């Protein structure tokens, strides 16, 4: 212990004596460790931190699934069957997200609602802070509507009213009794619900009882004591097979997937976050390489000191320990400053990140993150300190204390180590820049994709009318008709329309269908399409081209012939040589009472699910023939969409003063949001790649400059033997480029192996995209050349006369 304190004291004194070296090394490590701490704190908050529920590892989520459609919600009757029959699940709970408008004396507000089974709160170990949570008697169709408030809503909307329990609030114009308030911090959905209501209230609705054509929900359950995930999966598979036999019309081809809750919540964000953590690890490695080189250069200058220590009897281990203690001291200071860098950067990082990432707001430097930083700092100190220390611990006292150490073996081993550092630095930078390059190219490819409509100058406003005030199709249709009519005369408005499923928002209604000119396939083979409901002016407002037939008109009324328009993907899928017009399509299962609707037009494809997802077959129904509760109003204006925002909201309120309007934003915002995840990852990876390039270029400069300094005598000899400036230049640059080529080759092999892990983040290019590899090689070559400029100039200035005398 005394020796350690002595080493630390001596190390600190040594570092203070070399303030330039210490400052550069500490700053380099602070950047590397800071970046790692910042990204790790996000990964820790989002992916690694234990879910705040009892035994979270035993919580699972269940979906229905069909091979052609993929994951779907679970039908209410199926949920009841599973709940009754499963022995591997204890207390399964249904849940789904919804939006409802609260209206009281204040302005109507659209709230995020969690519709949940009464068993959900006990399942998650949640108790009410005020009042109670739901009980079974609340979770029935005949029960009077009740709600449980989140702490946030209780504070923001109800002013922390402690007498709130038992009071009634109006949701979508229906009175609901508040039975409780949840504790602060409780949240379940990725986007926390502001208010919860029992899902069982829907239990008697006709559409809710349909096993095949339903809006669905998700099921959360806890594995029963002794049950395993595998056991639960096989039991559920058995129940689903039985339901398939029992209800072949609706359940054919349906199975269920059971996944751990954590996987369900975070799987979409895992590739990007792990990639970013890997990227900052590479940045830190490059920082380590730089500092290792600085250490090596410095230890070469300390040969005499180390030789004296050795001559005085210090063993090799003792010298290594002294030098590694100094390294750990540097990395410790770097780590402390890195924590500061991280604490400054977490705020901007979270603000930059897409809001959809769950638990992102909880990112902070907690004991787990501190432990990580401590471990990284310690490992960093050992990593960059050990090899130079071992190399320096072999001093030749005779050579170091005498005057003739030229060309010694130790010198050559240092040179080999430096070569290794150079090659590693280039290889690491190459891997990181390739990763970043692939993402940048993907984002560029994605941005070049046409969404199929013109989002410029369009304002979108979400409106949802409650059943209580608009109980009939006619009432709903009339409201939207009046709302669109109120928008059209506004100053600057060129056109206005309404749509159920706005492109890129991804809340589309997917459903199976039948065609009049084809025999109905087997249940499991029924095709699926997006079904959308639109006002006739929708296509012209978004400038979606008509390919064939006609658009909807005012003549397409509720009582006129049932018609649809399909997109090109739909038409080409069934009638590749044309002829879609006049055919009929029916939404739903063969036994459903839905009508066949005649195809009267074919329009261009729109990427409904995002720029990176090809357009799926889509069918449009005129709004008069299928009025919806929720629609998005679209307003095309001559100037900035924001300029009509207030007037547009006022226009909707002029139709119904109690009607709330939400998500008012330009359509370009949705377009931008649709690539937000990719943009975030690309931006951060690009930043880290740039940081890596800067660190690598500084490191390469250091290695080359040190090499030139060490070769002054050689350059002098060569000049005396006839070397011209070009020869000297070639000596420096060729050597660096040769090593860079080796580094790039190693980096390319590593990048080819590692870039496969980026596949899920790429669009329009493969993980071994030759253009990216070529461009990165050229970029890195240029960086190496740039890093050689100053050392090369100093090599050219070597005076042979002086060099040969030194």
């Amino acid at each position, binding site marked *: 212990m005394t020796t350690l304190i002595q080493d630390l004291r001596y190390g600190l004194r040594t570092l203070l004596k070399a303030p330039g070296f210490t400052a550069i090394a500490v700053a380099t490590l602070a950047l590397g460790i800071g970046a790692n701490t910042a990204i790790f704190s996000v990964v820790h908050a989002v992916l690694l931190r234990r879910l705040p529920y009892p035994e979270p590892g035993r919580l699972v989520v269940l979906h229905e699934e069909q091979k052609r459609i993929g994951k779907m919600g679970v039908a209410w009757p199926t949920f009841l069957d599973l709940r009754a029959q499963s022995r591997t699940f204890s207390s399964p709970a249904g849940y789904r997200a919804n939006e409802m408008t609260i209206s009281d004396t204040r302005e109507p507000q659209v709230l995020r609602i969690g519709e949940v089974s009464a068993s959900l709160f006990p399942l998650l170990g949640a108790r009410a802070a005020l009042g109670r949570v739901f009980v079974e008697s609340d979770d029935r169709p005949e029960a009077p509507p009740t709600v449980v408030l989140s702490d946030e809503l209780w504070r923001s909307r109800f002013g922390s009213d402690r007498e709130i329990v038992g009071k009634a609030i109006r949701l979508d114009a229906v009175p609901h009794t508040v039975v409780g308030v949840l504790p602060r911090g409780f949240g379940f959905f990725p986007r926390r619900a502001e208010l919860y209501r029992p899902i069982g209230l829907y239990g008697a609705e006709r559409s809710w009882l349909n096993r095949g054509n339903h809006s669905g929900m998700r099921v959360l359950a806890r594995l029963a004591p002794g049950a395993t995930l595998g056991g639960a999966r096989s039991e559920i598979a058995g129940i689903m097979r039985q339901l398939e036999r029992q209800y072949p019309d609706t359940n054919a081809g349906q199975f269920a997937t059971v996944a751990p809750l954590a996987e369900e919540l975070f799987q979409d964000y895992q590739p990007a976050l792990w990639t970013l953590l890997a990227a900052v690890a590479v940045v830190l490695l490059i920082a380590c390489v730089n500092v290792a080189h600085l250490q090596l250069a410095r230890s070469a200058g300390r040969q005499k000191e180390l030789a004296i220590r050795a001559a005085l009897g210090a063993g090799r281990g003792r010298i290594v320990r002294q030098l590694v203690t100094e390294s750990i001291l540097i990395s410790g200071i770097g780590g402390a400053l890195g924590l500061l860098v991280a604490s400054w950067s977490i705020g901007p990082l979270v603000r930059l990140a897409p809001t959809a990432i769950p638990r992102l707001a909880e990112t902070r430097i907690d004991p787990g993150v501190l432990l990580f930083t401590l471990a990284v700092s310690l490992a960093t100190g050992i990593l960059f300190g050990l090899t130079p220390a071992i190399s320096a611990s072999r001093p030749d006292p005779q050579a170091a204390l005498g005057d003739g150490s030229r*060309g010694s073996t130790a010198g*050559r081993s240092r040179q080999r180590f430096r070569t290794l550092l150079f090659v590693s630095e280039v290889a690491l930078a190459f891997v990181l820049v390739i990763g970043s390059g692939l993402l940048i190219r993907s984002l560029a490819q994605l941005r070049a994709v046409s969404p199929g409509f013109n989002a410029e100058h369009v304002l979108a406003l979400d409106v949802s009318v409650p059943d209580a005030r608009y109980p009939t199709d006619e009432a709903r249709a009339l409201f939207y008709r009046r709302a669109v009519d109120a928008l059209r005369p506004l100053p600057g408005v060129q056109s206005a329309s309404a749509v159920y499923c706005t492109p890129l928002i991804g809340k589309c209604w997917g459903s199976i269908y039948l065609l009049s000119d084809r025999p109905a396939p087997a249940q499991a083979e029924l095709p699926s399409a997006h079904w959308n409901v639109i006002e006739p002016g929708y296509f012209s407002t978004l400038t979606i081209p008509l390919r064939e037939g006609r658009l909807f008109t005012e003549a397409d009324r509720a009582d006129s012939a049932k018609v649809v328009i399909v997109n090109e993907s739909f038409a080409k899928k069934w009638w590749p040589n044309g002829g879609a017009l006049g055919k009929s399509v029916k939404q739903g299962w063969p036994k459903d009472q839905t009508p066949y609707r005649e195809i009267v037009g074919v329009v261009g494809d729109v990427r409904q699910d995002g720029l990176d997802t090809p357009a799926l077959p889509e069918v449009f129904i005129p709004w008069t023939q299928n009025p919806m509760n929720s629609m998005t109003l679209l307003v095309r204006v001559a100037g900035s969409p924001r300029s009509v925002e207030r007037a547009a909201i006022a226009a909707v309120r002029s139709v119904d003063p109690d009607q709330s309007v939400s998500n008012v934003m330009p359509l370009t915002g949705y377009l931008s949001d649709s690539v937000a995840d990719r943009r975030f990852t690309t931006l951060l990876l690009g930043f880290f790649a740039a940081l890596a390039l800067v660190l690598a270029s500084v490191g390469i400069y250091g290695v080359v400059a040190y090499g030139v300094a060490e070769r002054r005598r050689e350059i002098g000899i*060569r*000049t*005396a*033997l*006839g070397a*011209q400036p070009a020869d000297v230049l070639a000596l420096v640059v060729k050597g660096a480029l040769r090593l860079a080529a080796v580094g790039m080759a190693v980096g390319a092999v590593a990048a080819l192996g590692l870039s496969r892990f980026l596949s899920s983040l790429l669009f329009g290019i493969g993980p071994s995209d030759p253009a990216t590899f070529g461009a990165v090689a050229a970029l890195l070559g240029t960086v190496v050349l740039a890093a050689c400029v100053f050392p090369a100039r100093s090599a050219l200035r070597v005076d042979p*006369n002086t060099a*040969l005398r030194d």
Partner: protein
Amino acid sequence: MIQLSNVEKSFATKAGQTFVLRRVSMKIEPGEFVTIMGPSGAGKSTLLSILGMLDHDWAGEYRLLENEVHRMKPRERSELNKKYVGFVFQQYHLLDNLTVAENLDIPLSYRNVKGSERAAIVADTLDRFQIVGKKDLFPNQLSGGQQQLVGVARALIAKPKLLLADEPTGNLHSDQGREIMRLFKRLNGEGMTIVQVTHSEENATYGNRIVRLRDGWIVND
């Protein structure tokens, strides 16, 4: 072959201008073997560097084989060096990380001699200096005398007209030193112009002219 007129070299110091060479004028004919002698600090090595065009910071006139060196730019001077001059150093100055054969190859590589030709010339030189057996050894595997032998071979491989030697035997014991001097004598006999700097009176006897310097001045020629 060489004509120096009033060549001077000085440094600016706090005390004023400090001269290393003062008004050095001399003529060296082709085939001469000149020895420059003098105490330490007399300017011998500086004069040799100027003759070899490794030092560009001087005043006066210097003609080498009809070339007016004093009017040339550093780049042109180094071209001239490449064409006519071979250097032998007291500390040999072999490149540690190159083998004997590779060391010999360096001057040729700077003179744009083709690869195949270079290999032949190196082989020929190794043979001529009887160091074929050492061709793959590194300098630190050779004795001082052997290293200097390679140094001389390297200086001569590009067939210079002028051989400049700075204390060529300074780091060798007397037998090795004599061997090198006999080699110089033989080369001079074959027509090579040699200018050597030495402290050794014995070495000077191998030449046919002695120029003595003191404090930068030629005191005896």
